[in-house]
């Protein structure tokens, strides 16, 4: 690898040196920054601005100049409901179904995720044999591709799958899991927790191991009960890490798409259609392509994510300072 790259770098050096003579050392920093900045502007900042423009136009043409300006019509259409708790009463019912599904999903998934990650981290932090092995056992699904995860569980859960065979054998009886709306939803929560739990476990375990040993030793000297140690020492000292995990999990959970799309396709019906899938379907999957609606919905999600990311940055900064 190096034998290919080295000569290339040496050739690049010639114009770079000339440039350096013109600019001087300090301004040369911009040369290093430029590629990254151009990419970020072109594929991150410009899209945000364009997104606002798109959200105020309609039609199915992708070229902005061919799209009629409609002001806030898209937002009105999205938010128009006689009762926001009942998607059937909304003019864009699919949007509200997606929103309510996402809210339910985020609440349950983040709850279970943080709960199980904490439990697993606490257990891995005990004095156990082969900790490295067990840690990687819980961690490895994090690396699997979303489609692979979806197919693995689809294969297990299908009508003639191994889970139903087991349930038949125990006498409980099999069930067509992914055809039933509520079970399909429950399984998407399970599947995403299964796939991503290891990541949060790892962060929490690092947080647990950073708690100084002597605090525990002092507590043991005072004959504190284990339960009390957990509530009074472990949990408060772990709180900053918990906050990081919580916010990260929230940011990811709101954007859930890949696994669920490959797993249930959003169904049965719209039972597992979440907000990103709504955007994808409005903008790219169905005809006509409603780019305006998709952008308007994107902006709303972006608003939520900006708030969450600001919280995340604030939490990180506080952790570093404190």
């Amino acid at each position, binding site marked *: 690898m190096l034998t290919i790259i080295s000569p290339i770098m040496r050739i690049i050096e010639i114009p770079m040196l000339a440039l350096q003579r013109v600019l001087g050392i300090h301004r040369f920093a911009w040369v290093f920054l430029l590629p990254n900045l151009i990419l970020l502007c072109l594929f991150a900042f410009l899209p945000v601005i364009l997104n606002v423009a798109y959200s105020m136009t309609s039609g199915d043409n992708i070229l902005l100049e061919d799209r009629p300006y409609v002001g806030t019509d898209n937002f009105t259409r999205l938010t128009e409901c006689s009762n926001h708790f009942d998607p059937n009463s909304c003019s864009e019912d699919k949007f509200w179904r997606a929103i309510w599904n996402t809210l339910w999903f985020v609440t349950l998934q983040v709850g279970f995720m943080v709960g199980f990650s904490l439990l697993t981290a606490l257990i891995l932090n005990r004095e156990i044999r082969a900790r490295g092995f067990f840690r990687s056992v819980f961690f490895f699904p994090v690396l699997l591709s979303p489609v692979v995860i979806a197919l693995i569980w689809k294969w297990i859960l299908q009508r003639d799958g191994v889970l139903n*065979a087991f349930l038949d054998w125990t006498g409980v009886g099999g069930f067509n899991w992914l055809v039933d709306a509520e079970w399909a939803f429950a399984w998407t929560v399970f599947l995403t927790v299964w796939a991503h739990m290891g990541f949060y476990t790892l962060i929490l375990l690092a947080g647990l191991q950073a708690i100084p040993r002597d605090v525990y030793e002092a507590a043991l000297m005072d004959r504190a009960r284990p339960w009390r140690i957990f509530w009074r020492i472990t949990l408060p000292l772990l709180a900053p890490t918990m906050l990081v995990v919580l916010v990260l999990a929230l940011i990811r959970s709101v954007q859930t798409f890949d696994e669920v799309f490959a797993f249930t396709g959003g169904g049965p019906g719209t039972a597992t259609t979440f907000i990103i899938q709504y955007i994808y379907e409005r903008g790219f999957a169905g005809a006509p392509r409603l780019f305006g609606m998709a952008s308007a919905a994107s902006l709303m999600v972006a608003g939520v994510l900006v708030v969450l990311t600001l919280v995340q940055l604030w939490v990180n900064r506080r952790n570093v300072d404190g």
Partner: protein
Amino acid sequence: MNRVWQFITATRGQGRMDWTDWVTYGYLFLGVFLMFFPVIWLVLSSFKTEADIQRYPPTFLPYQQERVMVDGYDEPLPLYRITGGAYEGQVLAQVRRVGLQAQMVDPENPAGGRVRVDTDQREPVERVSLAVENYTGLFERFNFLRFFWNSTFITVTSTLLTLLVNSMAAFALSKYQFRGRTVVLLLVIGTLMIPQTVVLVPLFLIVTQMGMFNSLWGVIIPGAATPTGVFLLRQYMITIPDEILDAARMDKASEWKIFWRIIVPLSAPAIAVLAILAIMWRWNDFLWPLIVLTRTENLTLQLALNSFQGEMSTEWSSLLAMTVLTLLPIAMVFMFLQKYIATGIASTGGK
């Protein structure tokens, strides 16, 4: 076995199992089962023939019916054990099946002629055997190599691009004093708030206008500059002492040479972590490729797998084999670089 048990149960150096230890190990082994079984089940199932896959309840290991060559017949004939009637206990080969009866022949003595057996009075003779044809079929019937190549090309190219572009930016942000540095830093932090998922429509416009729709570059370039990567590398480069750079400048080294010959080698651990992360991001990427790549010859492995699951839901054997092959490269990376992956992900909070 006793030794193993002692090894497992020894805790806290006291040698006695507390009830909490039982709970701990119970939880851990349940975890091992829950995490590993699905993947093991996938791999085992991918070696089953289509007939074996249809079987309910399923067997754990893949089985195939035994076949033998019998004199006077061109094709190998399937073997059955007869469970009732006049030939009970014998192992016969089936020549053909007519309604509820099967014409069978004794493989030891084919000259003895055909006999008729009721189909419910026989059961197939099976043995454990791997249906490798599920895998070889992928290369013959589908453009599997093409998808594999697409995924590999995207992963390798965009990882290299990410490493180069991000390390250059990180170098500038960590080792230079220039006007506007804070602004640039804030800009990079700002992009943390803009995941691809919320700018799909305008991104689609930009990529289409640049002529990258349905091109692998349309997936590679938009994701190349990552704020996570810049921060990860910058944190590391800040710790490199400025004296080294000053000494190099005394020796009339150009800034590019300093970057390439000093900063990059010294930041190797951080760059390795970013490389692993970037490989994972790209290999597993799904939503953006789903939008940009629509032609069959452009599909990545992930996309191909997803589109085939709709078309071949009745043909699980090929689908499962393909799933295993998609999982394999990441599994290998994990096995060799496990430690770095864990620390890398924990330290950046990015995956």
